């Protein structure tokens, strides 16, 4: 039978209990322990066939306890924040420690947090107003063109409240709102069906829609679906590829970003291992990971280990400069932390992860870049990407792309995967536009079974040769 008392949330746990838990966690030895308290509320709406088909909501809450002893990590979590359950988790995590030396935990004090986003979430909008947003998107997508036959619009939002304490004396607290709107449209003509999709969001409230309306995403999805009705076979083989600004920055995420995460490099598993200081990109190519950009999907005030996020230069003017660090790997590699320790939830161990990863703008006119290509591919929108960090081979799948014929856009092509080699694809960057754009805010990144929200960005970029996986050989 249900208990009559509401369960405790992270806000109910006093600092004195946190300090006691950290002591328990280090009671068998170990150099470091941390606590990640999380309370998350979510809600979402799905509109389909002109009706709000369903709404859903949820709340999860829990504590993850980590004990680090050299290269070893012990981890336990609980969704019950009673003292007994939390103490059990701390003792379970403590079992991993093998070294008899204990670094005694320090008294915990709150660290100031520099805020990059507000606490207001879209979830605070009355339900009727959130419904109105998706209905606007649906109407706009269907009104775009009579060939649009199906529209799905969704709005998902969450607010995560975290309290992170560690044995080095840090206490960080953050409120992390996040939402995304997504629209997908299917257009049909003469038995041919094509799909378009668009979406956006960030760590902010309804003011987001003052700049980018639901109609903007709806029309974008509908435009893509209708445009692709005229698609022809994609070419096969190596060729010049012009990447449009914004979301095609997924190239950087797959080709270099994952390979520069510290865990892979510390263990010698990455195609970039031991290559700091070497040339991995053409002159002019500068790639950064920046978790501090206001209101962005990939941004955080503090990472999921409680450390301030930052701006890390990964590649500067073509030279490999640095890795993305979390506490464990930064400590073992004796390198400074970069605020990239992230986890999916209290049930997951932190890993070094990207935040917002992008290439800085160059000076060229995007039109000139396109005109410089006699024959090639112009890739405007991508679906997912994936990388094998060891061999360096990566793919990303173009969902909206066009042939380039004599420096001008030709017909759109069927979806095609592009494949390349991370350590050298950026050496083939020959022109960089002045039009850096970040994506609109719907990116998710998978690593080690954990998903976290990320951002990417790119100016118009010409890569002299990438293998395009079309059907027309």
């Amino acid at each position, binding site marked *: 039978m249900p208990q009559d008392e*509401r369960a405790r949330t992270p806000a109910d746990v006093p600092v004195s209990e946190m300090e006691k838990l950290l002591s328990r966690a280090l009671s068998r030895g170990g150099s470091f322990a941390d606590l990640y308290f999380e309370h998350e509320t979510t809600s979402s709406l799905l509109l389909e066939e002109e009706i709000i*088909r369903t709404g859903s909501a949820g709340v999860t809450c829990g504590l993850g306890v980590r004990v680090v002893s050299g*290269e070893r990590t012990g981890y336990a979590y609980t969704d019950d924040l009673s003292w007994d359950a939390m103490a059990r*988790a701390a003792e379970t995590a403590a079992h991993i420690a093998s070294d008899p030396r204990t670094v005694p935990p320090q008294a915990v004090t709150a660290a100031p947090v520099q805020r990059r986003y507000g606490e207001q979430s879209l979830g605070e909008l009355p339900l009727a107003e959130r419904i109105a947003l998706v209905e606007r998107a649906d109407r706009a997508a269907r009104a775009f063109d009579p060939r649009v036959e199906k529209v799905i619009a969704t709005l998902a939002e969450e607010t995560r409240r975290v309290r992170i304490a560690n044995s080095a004396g840090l206490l960080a607290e953050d409120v992390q709102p996040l939402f995304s709107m997504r629209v997908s449209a299917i257009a049909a003509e003469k038995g041919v069906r094509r799909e378009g999709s668009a979406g956006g969001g960030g760590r902010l409230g309804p003011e987001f829609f003052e700049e980018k309306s639901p109609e903007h995403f709806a029309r974008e999805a509908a435009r893509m679906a209708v445009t692709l009705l005229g698609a022809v076979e994609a070419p*096969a083989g190596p060729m010049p590829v012009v990447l449009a600004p914004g979301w095609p920055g997924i190239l950087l995420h797959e080709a270099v970003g994952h390979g520069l995460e510290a865990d892979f490099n510390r263990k010698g598993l990455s195609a970039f291992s031991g290559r700091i200081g070497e040339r991995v990109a053409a002159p002019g190519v500068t790639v950064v990971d920046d978790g501090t950009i206001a209101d962005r999907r990939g941004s955080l005030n503090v990472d999921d280990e409680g450390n301030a996020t930052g701006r890390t230069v990964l590649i500067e003017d073509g030279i490999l400069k640095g890795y993305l660090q979390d506490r464990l790997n930064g400590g073992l590699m004796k390198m400074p932390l970069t605020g990239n320790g992230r986890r999916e939830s209290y049930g997951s161990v932190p890993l070094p992860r990207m935040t917002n990863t992008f290439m800085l703008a160059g000076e060229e006119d995007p039109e000139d870049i396109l005109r410089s290509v006699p024959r090639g591919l112009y890739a405007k929108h991508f679906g997912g990407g994936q990388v094998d960090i060891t061999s360096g081979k990566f793919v990303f799948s173009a969902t909206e792309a066009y042939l380039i014929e004599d420096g001008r856009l030709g017909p759109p092509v069927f979806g095609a995967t592009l494949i390349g080699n991370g350590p050298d694809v950026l050496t083939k960057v020959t022109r960089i536009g002045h039009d850096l754009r970040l994506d609109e805010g719907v990116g998710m990144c998978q690593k080690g079974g954990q998903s976290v929200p990320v951002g990417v960005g790119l100016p118009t970029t010409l890569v002299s040769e990438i293998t395009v996986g079309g059907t027309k050989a």
Partner: protein
Amino acid sequence: MGYRDLATDLLKMARAAGADAADLLVAEGTEFSVTVRQGEVETLKEAGSKGLGIRVFVGKRTASSYTSDFSRPALQRLVEETVGMARATGEDAAAGLPDEMTPPEDVDLAMHDPSPSELPTEERIERARKGEAVALETAGITNSQGASWGSGEGSIILANTMGFMGGYRTSSVSLSVVPQAERDGQMERDYWYTTGRGLSDLETPEQVGRIAAERTLRRLGAKQVPTCQAPVVFDPDAAAELMGALFSAISGYAVFRNATFLKDAVGQEIASPLLTLVDDGRMHRGLGARPFDGEGLPTRRNVPVERGVLRFYVCDSYAARKIGAKPVGSARRGLGGGPGVGAGNLFFEPGETPPEEIIGGVERGLYVTDLIGFGVNVVTGDYSQGAVGHWIEKGTLTHPVHEITIAGNLNEMLKDVDAVGNDLLFRGSSASPTLRIRRMTISGS
């Protein structure tokens, strides 16, 4: 199974709050994992958790919610908010619980085996260590991404206001090894794994380590091949991915959304007559087995594609109402949201040809052992994926191949399957034998 009373209580609360109907899922489980790298424990994780998801209907309007807080005030508020949310959604003629329910059957599918949780922690670590050690001792293996042992137990209760109340327990266990090799500046990794309900289902750590090492070493020396059109042989794991795409394309949801290249295709030959697709929700010890589905309907052995002919779309109650079909016991449900369609134990029926003969019958072509990317579009059938494998000349594997893509259209690819292997082997809930596709575009140098 202490949560049956909670379920009954919650359904009453939902009714009292104004719901005309409701169903709910209560799940709890334990999780253990350990990763060993270079012989040392790297990460050890152990925990238990619980959660509850409820779906309510107010007339033909619906909403759902989930929580890990099982206290009465929290549940009361959750139920009231969910009913409030349902009232704000649109009337949907297809919404609702199943039309008819039967009580859960008492069938033993051997989904729970206590052996993984009875194995002492030290022994779990030792098996991971052994798997990795065998790989690391193999000549040519130079590094390791680690070996992982994982196990878990779970139990669920599903109940609804039509009087259904059922529950079951499950267990699972797995071992994987990921070795790495380096030669002439080229680094490669591959993996092997074994999984099942209990220890007796597993390959030995030595086998897993040895196969992982072999798979890694055979990637060394890989190069691109020139862009061409040629036959492509999919190894069982690669073929299973293709099979998954076919399953998505025949989901009732894809059909009413016009989001499949196989719309209006029931009764038609959509694939080679060599292909028969089976989704068996009741395979003994199968990792996809369960006595009833996510709506409480009895599971069964479905054959949606028989000798190339599409017999029916795979539907839960909602999709079935949308397209005028019947639910087939394939509803999948998580804690958040309502059910959708998902596979139980999915496989292509094996053929009679040994895989060596399938490769042997190729004059010049590609043998694919790994696919990466997201280039499969079931709306249009467009298919374009990154691939790793071996080049075939005169029926023999010659050299490893990488940094290429294979592309085609699923519609044609399924019809172009001209050989099906006799090598069906379940490792996980879905499996395929080796398949050969007559012709695809290979994009390389």
